[in-house]
């Protein structure tokens, strides 16, 4: 069956199948509702991907050296660590955090009045990578030799679960789209079966007068494919408007408000209507030929 028949209408062939009432708008509605949901699943998947990239990038480019040493040696070892870091290839910047910055880090847990001077807190040294990155194992060995109280934390243990979580969120979004596609195919198959059953007399007459299966199937397939296409187009448009109307990240912040499309990714939802049409085409065609094979 040449798919070009979808865009080159055969009015005579279209007329042989009567308008099928409920199945017509139900098919359009189903395709529209599914496309609407698919837009949000796609937005979720893309947002999760962006979040994963952002978290990974942010953590991947920085590391922390935690320095624990007796009070009279802390400044000495800090200078030693900074000296090591300044000569290590792949490290762009390195600086010791101030007491105020360390207090700010602890404030969520201990409150604003923490007597930081009275506590044996380790000194934190923040470093950022340059493009090529540094040799983590080599740096650890140099630190162990020259500043025994220094421990390099390259954030791997933080980054990995975040990246895994975001990747799974992205996978869930894609899985949702696949499930939506499958559910759409199932519902359109049911609608096509229903239409074929309701038009059993039409099919019988057409076979009697010498219609080929492909001719009969075409009349149903074209109708359902175009209904799915138009319904999905409407659902996609509504979904995109809904996503566009979500509050912006700037005004509210947070993950959910970042649930949108950015730049060229606004083009991605536009693939949903043709995808729904392809699903409807395949589902209706398979259903029609299966039903027709039951007849002689």
């Amino acid at each position: 069956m040449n798919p070009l028949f979808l865009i080159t209408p055969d009015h005579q062939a279209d007329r042989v199948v009567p308008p099928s009432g409920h199945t017509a708008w139900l098919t359009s509605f189903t395709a529209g509702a599914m496309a609407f949901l698919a837009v949000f699943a796609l937005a979720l998947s893309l947002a999760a991907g962006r979040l994963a990239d952002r978290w990974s990038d942010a953590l991947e480019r920085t590391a922390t050296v935690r320095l624990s040493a007796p009070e009279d040696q802390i400044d000495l070892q800090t200078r030693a660590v900074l000296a090591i870091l300044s000569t290590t290839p792949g490290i762009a910047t390195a600086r010791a955090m101030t007491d105020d910055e360390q207090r700010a880090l602890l404030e969520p847990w201990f409150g604003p009045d923490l007597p930081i001077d009275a506590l044996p807190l380790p000194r934190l040294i923040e470093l950022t990578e340059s493009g090529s990155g540094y040799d983590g194992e080599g740096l650890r060995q140099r630190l162990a030799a020259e500043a025994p109280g220094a421990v390099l934390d390259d954030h791997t243990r933080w980054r990995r679960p975040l990246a895994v979580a975001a990747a799974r969120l992205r996978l869930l979004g894609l899985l949702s789209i696949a499930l939506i596609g499958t559910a759409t195919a199932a519902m359109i198959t049911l609608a096509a079966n229903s239409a074929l059953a309701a038009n059993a007399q039409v099919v019988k007459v057409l076979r009697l007068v010498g219609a080929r299966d492909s001719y009969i199937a075409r009349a149903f397939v074209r109708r359902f494919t175009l209904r799915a296409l138009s319904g999905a187009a409407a659902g996609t448009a509504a979904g995109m408007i809904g996503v566009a109307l979500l509050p912006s990240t700037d005004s509210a912040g947070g993950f959910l408000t970042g649930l949108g499309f950015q730049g060229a990714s606004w083009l991605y939802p536009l693939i949903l209507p043709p995808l729904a049409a392809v699903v409807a085409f395949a589902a209706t065609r398979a259903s029609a030929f299966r039903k027709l094979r039951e007849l002689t």
Partner: protein
Amino acid sequence: MIAFDNVAYSYGGGELLSDISLRLAPGSFHFLTGPSGAGKSTFLKLCYAELLPTAGRVTLFDREVRSLSRDDIALTRRRIGVVHQDCQFLDHLPLAANVALPLTVAGKTSPPQDLTDLLGWVGLGQLADARPPSLSGGERQRAALARAIIMGPDVVLADEPTGNLDWEMSLRLLTLLVELNRMGKTVLIATHDLNLIRQAKSQLAARVLRISKRRIQLAGADL
């Protein structure tokens, strides 16, 4: 044209037709008679491959039906016009479109005048735009006949075509079928209406086949 060789047909339970061998020659006119339930409709369905024999060979236009693909069966049916007692139409289409349906599905068109002439020939010229549900039984039978012959088939099969008609309308339909036969079409009519058969035999050399005890016999003198 249509040949049966030792054909049998069984429905789930038992054998309905058994050991049937015959040939419908081009241009012949046959009646098929027998009591209700004897298998007349089944025999006709075997003639246009709606049913396949459970034993033996049915040959349509020199091709064994079992060797025909579904597309081949569709193409073969374009050479066989069928009229049923309960003829069915596409109720959402006007009569003219229904009559032209075989042409439509074959991707052909007919000059409007030809269609008008055909509808006039079966006496339905004024009803071209009528919907099938509004037609009487006789009108539906004549419309079915017009639909059956619009492709210029080689064979016309009619299953109890006068079953729902009064005598006057039955004669009118018979006249049309006789005219078709005189144009060279092979005609096979399944009927239990002996008066109709007698009337036809008075006009042409029709052969009468009778289904009895699952077999087909040539009948004659008792009609």
